[in-house]
């Protein structure tokens, strides 16, 4: 069994005591920061990235895995406890999770989210291990034209799932792509849009954009709202564990969510997010058992299913990332950034050139997941206490960690000025109703897209039809087109807007 031996290899690399310790620390830090209201997984990971810089690659990746799961779970925790979704995919969790919390059942909600995620993560890891290799073969069939089309599909996928106006989301992607182009052009060596500022010839740092736009932008926006609108809910948590009845309800929901998440997660472009929404819709469609809470009033299935789907999707979304090097969402984009810093360029080569690292990474993802459950189940009560810290103490701390994080990325004060600039830009985005998530995805993909567009057209001698005539590339673009048409259909459009009203 290749699968088993590969996984064994992975665990032999990843599961050393010192690595487990790093994983534990990562998980702890990820949860601690991720549980802060207003700090989503993206901001958490961005902030904690520098913590891994000094480590050797495998240790760094396993710590990242811990941070990743910690941040994800921390985000779900705030979604449940304070109705603050840290990222788009936990929007669904807030619907029933927060209602459960208000009824004093925050403990079971948190446990359901944790257990559901853990189960989904295990299944996702197995799927990842089983299908990563065949999909890598497929990746070698990808020429520049296919890569370009796939990125178009990924970006369109991100647009489909963004709330609000479609045109605005596309414009934000393009703005991100353009910002990604700032800096020295690899082909000609020309410094583009650098305004003769030497620091800008290296381009704008990803961490700078992420922290400015998400961290500072969010903080300023939060502070500008009256206190009662962002008030955290903390009182009256009773019973930390789901009852037998809860388990009976939640197990089929978790199974359905996991299946949906595993399949949808493979799609580039927000697969995990789509999975969370789809899972909630499916649960809502299934019949209520007698005596069960209706959806929207604190049904445990409404927490367990989307959380499982989200986590399974997050796991399988590593497939496009590891095999094709294409980040499917903003969190994954950050992970790519982190891997690049450790000289790991995600893509089909990693698996063949560095199997230890590849399987080590997959194993560490599972370990991160596992660490999360041991760390967090006993500590649910404590995370709830953390939220009693008033916001006026939290946000200076967040600003401080952002500033230190940004500075330590390059040991360069220029980045601190830049993060202030992006903080202001981020606030403007919030004010004029432009979502920053698509921008971040575009920002990561900008240089890659240009590179592949150039190569594809160079090979085809300037013939644009190459994107449509090559079968793989053509079908990818076709799927992208269909996605776009579906979103534009009036009936879907109104449903989509409805789904996001919850935000």
């Amino acid at each position: 069994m290749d699968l088993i031996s590969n996984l064994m290899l992975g665990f032999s690399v990843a599961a050393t005591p010192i690595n487990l310790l790093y994983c534990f620390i990562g998980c702890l830090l990820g949860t601690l920061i991720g549980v802060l209201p207003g700090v989503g997984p993206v901001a958490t990971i961005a902030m904690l990235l520098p913590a891994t810089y000094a480590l050797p690659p495998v240790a760094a990746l396993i710590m990242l895995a811990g941070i990743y799961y910690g941040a994800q779970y921390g985000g779900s925790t705030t979604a449940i406890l304070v109705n603050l979704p840290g990222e788009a995919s936990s929007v669904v969790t807030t619907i029933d999770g927060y209602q459960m919390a208000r009824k004093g059942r925050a403990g079971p909600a948190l446990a359901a989210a944790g257990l559901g995620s853990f189960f989904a993560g295990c299944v996702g890891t197995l799927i990842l291990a089983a299908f990563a290799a065949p999909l890598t073969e497929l990746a070698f069939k990808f020429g520049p034209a296919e890569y370009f089309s796939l990125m178009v599909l990924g970006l369109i996928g991100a647009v489909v799932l963004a709330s609000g106006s479609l045109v605005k989301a596309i414009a934000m992607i393009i703005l991100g792509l353009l910002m990604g182009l700032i800096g020295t052009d690899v082909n000609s060596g020309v410094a583009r849009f650098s305004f003769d500022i030497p620091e800008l010839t290296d381009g704008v740092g990803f961490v700078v954009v992420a922290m400015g736009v998400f961290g500072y932008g969010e903080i300023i926006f939060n502070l500008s709202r009256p206190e009662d609108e962002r008030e955290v809910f903390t009182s009256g948590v009773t019973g930390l564990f789901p009852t037998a009845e809860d388990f009976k309800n939640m197990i089929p929901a978790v199974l359905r969510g996991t299946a949906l998440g595993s399949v949808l997660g493979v799609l580039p472009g927000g697969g995990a997010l789509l999975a969370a929404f789809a899972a909630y819709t499916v649960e809502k469609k299934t019949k209520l058992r007698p005596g069960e809470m209706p959806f929207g009033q604190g049904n445990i299935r409404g927490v367990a299913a989307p959380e499982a789907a989200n986590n399974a999707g997050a796991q399988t979304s590593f497939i496009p990332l590891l095999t094709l090097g294409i980040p499917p969402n903003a969190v994954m984009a950050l992970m790519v950034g982190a891997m690049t810093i450790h000289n790991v360029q995600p893509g089909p080569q990693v698996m063949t050139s560095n199997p230890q690292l590849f399987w080590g990474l997959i194993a560490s993802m599972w370990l991160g997941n596992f660490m999360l459950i041991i760390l967090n189940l006993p500590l649910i009560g404590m995370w709830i206490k953390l939220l009693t810290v008033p916001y006026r103490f939290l946000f200076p701390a967040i600003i401080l960690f952002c500033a230190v994080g940004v500075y330590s990325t390059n040991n360069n004060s220029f980045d601190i000025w830049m993060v202030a600039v992006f903080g202001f830009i981020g606030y403007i985005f919030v004010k004029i109703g432009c979502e920053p998530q698509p921008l971040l995805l575009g920002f990561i993909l900008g240089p890659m897209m240009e590179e592949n567009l150039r190569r594809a057209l160079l090979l085809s001698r300037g013939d644009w039809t190459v994107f449509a005539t090559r079968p793989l590339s053509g079908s990818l673009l076709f799927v992208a087109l269909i996605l776009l048409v579906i979103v534009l259909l009036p009936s879907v459009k109104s449903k989509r807007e409805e789904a996001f009203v919850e935000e």
Partner: protein
Amino acid sequence: MNIIKSQKDFFSGLMFLIVGGGFAYGATSYSIGTAARMGPGYFPLLLGSIMLILGAIILFSSIALERPNRDPVGSFAWGPILYVLGSNISFGVLLVGLPSIGLPSSGLFVSIFVLTLIASKAGDKFVLHEVLILGAVLSLICYLAFILLLKLQMPMWPVYITG
């Protein structure tokens, strides 16, 4: 402002129009090349132009399409903006110093206290002794996490004291 049906769309359209135009215009100063041999200006010109068009569409729809509420942008929270960004900038200035005006580094701990003081001004309530305690707690956390645990290289104390 009655012709504007959606303020948010109006201003975002305007932003995309101007920024897209800016990028497209800036791209023309680099060599464009042909599709087969793209110069550094080709892709930015293409994207900038698309963004300019999208901006125009958004701008147009904000005037043409009727909306239930006018999506008001609302007033800018200048206080929080100034305090949050100001605390960030002063942190940077104090941590590394500004060689151009001969200001030496004041080190991590001074920077933390100044950041906490300025940032806290942005909140609803400012109680000096609470802020000072917060600064002390954060200093301790930063020392443990960044200096001891992660071994980040940064000055801890003001150079004019340690010499």
